């Protein structure tokens, strides 16, 4: 039976929690050969990370318990192996990279020290470890590798840190590399580079890669085969093409249908009097110029998508428009009055018209307030909107409007799922009956299918109540179905501003084209074309 490098058979893992025993994965089996890439695809809570944690012996027991199954590495069961042998497997034969390299690199040691440590713990001589560390850093494409060895993790960018993690993982030439959401925290262009690096390294060393992701695009880009998981159960497995073109299980179908960027694009209405007109807004933090003169107009009931990678200044723009930060110069005319020169009393009135939905609803809802308190707070602050007698009724109405029920009123935010929490945040914004809602990465933290639901909800609200939206995202496909206009930002500048059709079909700027090309398409054939085109451009 040693023909597969890794074979997981009938693995079940359960966790003892407050609400009783939770079966994190139930009876899952999959296998992986040398030189092959297997993707485990699933949304949050699907148990996709649990089986890999079991392989790496990272499950805390208790509360976790492996209730059945075996994990065979070259035919040897890892679960029955004595602890000291197991430690030899970790790092040497199986290595792992994580989603957030900053929290997985020790901030008080230099990168060079940490790579050397990975080598010396497994018995490499110190002198050899030093030269090997240098070779690895060079290989993963860190600029100035010799100097970089002496640097600390915070001195690198996100993509470079992930490269350092890869270097550490590959230090001992493992047979199997487990990558748990390796590119989720990275910008699209960086994501493409890191994935390309992984593929190159795989071809060089012949290792197998087990990649855990929620992103169909990543699957299409790198994986040979895919395993789809839902709520701890393996629902579908097959080659990437088979699964994408001909999904069997309803969940897989739903997941594929939910991938953004396939619907009709909006054709914006004729431009009339803008509700918000921004002129040459600038902001600097110390010597860093966050915004270098931003100007745009927003019509009533229109959606403006602001897209850019991290550090492009899109969130700063949102904060400035809401007066959470003060701009250095510029004007923003809201119905003809400059937002930036308003007195506190005027600002207080303006808050009713201008609302925001934040990225992470877990953090933007006060954990100690019930849903009723959260939503009705708007009327406590602005008592002239609604008499107190009608509050309960209106909260129920708003909850229905966002797809929740009146019975949710007495509950606390932590009792809801991520998507539901974002709905509560939207209901809270609607309570003030605003005319403009700024969504700062409002769907980025959500699963694909939930993302689609929330976007559909926002679209519905816009149609019914003609609210204007400024929709900030780092991902182009997300805004394709929803936006009227798209503004692409890079390093504090607007690089492109146009209707959604213009930007997606005939992008004028190189940066926009690069962003579009770097975005991963869930269709493996389309993605293969993209890759070929990218390679051609590179050569």
């Amino acid at each position, binding site marked *: 039976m040693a023909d597969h490098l890794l074979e997981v058979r009938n693995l079940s893992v359960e966790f003892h929690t*407050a609400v009783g025993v939770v079966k994190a994965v139930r009876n899952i089996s999959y296998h992986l050969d040398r030189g092959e890439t297997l993707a485990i695809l699933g949304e949050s809570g699907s148990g996709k990370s649990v089986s890999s944690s079991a392989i790496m012996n990272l499950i805390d027991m208790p509360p976790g318990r492996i209730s059945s199954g075996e994990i065979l590495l070259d035919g040897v069961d890892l679960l029955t192996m004595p602890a000291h042998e197991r430690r030899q497997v970790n790092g040497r034969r199986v290595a792992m990279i994580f989603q957030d390299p900053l929290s997985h690199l020790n901030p008080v040691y230099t990168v060079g020290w940490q790579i050397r440590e990975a080598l010396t713990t497994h018995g490499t001589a110190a002198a050899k470890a030093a030269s090997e560390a240098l070779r690895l850093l060079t290989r993963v494409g860190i600029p100035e590798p010799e100097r970089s060895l002496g640097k600390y993790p915070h001195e690198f960018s996100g993509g470079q840190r992930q490269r350092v993690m890869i270097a550490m993982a590959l230090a001992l030439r493992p047979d199997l590399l487990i990558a748990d959401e390796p590119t989720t925290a990275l910008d699209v262009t960086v994501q493409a580079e890191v994935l390309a690096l992984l593929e190159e390294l795989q071809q060089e060393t012949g290792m197998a890669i087990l990649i855990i992701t929620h992103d169909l695009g990543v699957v299409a880009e790198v994986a040979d085969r895919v395993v789809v998981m839902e709520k701890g159960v393996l629902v579908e497995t097959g080659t990437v093409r088979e699964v994408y073109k001909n999904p069997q299980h309803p969940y897989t179908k739903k997941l594929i249908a939910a991938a953004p960027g396939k619907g009709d694009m909006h054709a914006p209405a004729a431009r009339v009097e803008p509700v918000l007109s921004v002129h040459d807004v600038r902001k600097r933090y110390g010597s860093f110029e966050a915004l270098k003169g931003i100007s745009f107009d927003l019509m009533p009931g229109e959606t403006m998508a602001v897209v850019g990678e991290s550090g492009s200044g899109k969130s700063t723009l949102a904060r400035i428009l809401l007066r959470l930060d003060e701009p250095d110069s510029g004007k923003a005319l809201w119905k003809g009055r400059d937002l930036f020169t308003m007195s506190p009393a005027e600002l207080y009135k303006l808050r009713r018209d201008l609302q925001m939905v*934040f990225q992470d609803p877990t953090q933007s809802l006060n954990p100690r307030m019930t849903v009723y308190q959260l939503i009705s707070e*708007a009327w406590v602050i602005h008592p002239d909107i609604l008499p107190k007698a009608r509050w309960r009724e209106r909260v129920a109405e708003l909850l229905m409007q966002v797809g929740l029920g009146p019975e949710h009123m007495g509950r606390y935010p932590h009792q809801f799922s991520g998507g539901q929490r974002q709905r509560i945040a939207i209901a809270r914004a609607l309570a003030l009956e605003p005319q403009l809602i700024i969504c700062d990465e409002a769907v980025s933290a959500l699963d694909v299918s939930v993302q689609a639901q929330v976007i559909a909800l926002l679209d519905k609200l816009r149609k019914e109540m003609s609210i204007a939206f400024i929709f900030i995202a780092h991902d182009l496909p997300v805004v394709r179905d929803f936006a009227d206009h798209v503004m692409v930002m890079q390093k504090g500048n607007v690089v492109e501003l146009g209707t959604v059709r213009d930007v997606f079909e005939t992008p004028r700027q190189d940066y926009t084209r690069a962003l579009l090309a770097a975005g991963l398409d869930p269709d493996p054939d389309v993605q293969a074309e993209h890759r070929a085109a990218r390679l051609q451009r590179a050569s």
Partner: protein
Amino acid sequence: MTLVTNDSVILEEPPFVTRMWRMLLADKFALCAVIFLVFILILAIIGPSWLGDLATKQNLRGRNAAPFDWQRGWVWWMGADALGRPLLARIIVATQNTLMVAAGAVALSAVAGTFLGLIAGFSSPRVNQVIMRLADVIMSFPSLLIAVIVLYILGSSILNLMLVLAITRIPVYLRTTRAEVLEIRERMFVQAARVMGASKNRILFRHILPVVLPTLTTLATLDFAYVMLAESALSFLGIGIQPPEITWGLMISQGRQYLTNAWWLSFWPGLAIILTTMSLNLLSNWLRIALDPVQRWRLEMKGHKNG
């Protein structure tokens, strides 16, 4: 795309009092602590009028009488002090003064410190500077020295003692509160409240304070013991509570010179202090979990299992 939600079942919640009671039953330590504290409180109220005479009556033939002498009346079971007064009776009588000084000082310093901390953390850098430097002044002064000076000027009384102890403890709460406020005010839900147009007061008292409060209650219970002992030190110096009034702290310091031959003089009042603070600590620990909607399930689950 439909707008169907797919979440697990959410349990209905019982009314507040029933729920707190159930959660108290679920935590046996907290339950014991509450029973003990209620007991102490009753003693504090009825103690002086009940045993006041007995506790101050000298009996020179029974000087430093050993404890566990079951033949004599129950007030003598803990032995007697250097003037032959029954220790158990004295401890019961001292409860009132001790609790009054300690609770008063802790409450005063906690309220003042928290309030100043909230202001310091949330207002302009200038106000912040003024408040923090004042706190530094208080902290850099030896607290006993302030106490000596103030009590010398004002004369010693229970109220003055409370005030002095409160002032010296304010910086503890102030610094903790300010540090937490600085962190919490950057959190998203505070930003969200600002976007809604919430006033500063609302943000401070409705959004920030509830998050800081658990830390402060824990701090306050720990401070309880400190204040009791500080009070005894002042009494020892002759500017705190003076005999014939009694406090637990004073009893400890009176017993100090007999430590080698009559340990019980200091031991029993010490035990009273330890048990009281420990109970408060257990209670605050329980309170912290019970009042946090995110943590609450820990207690509710335990309740199910135990019965």
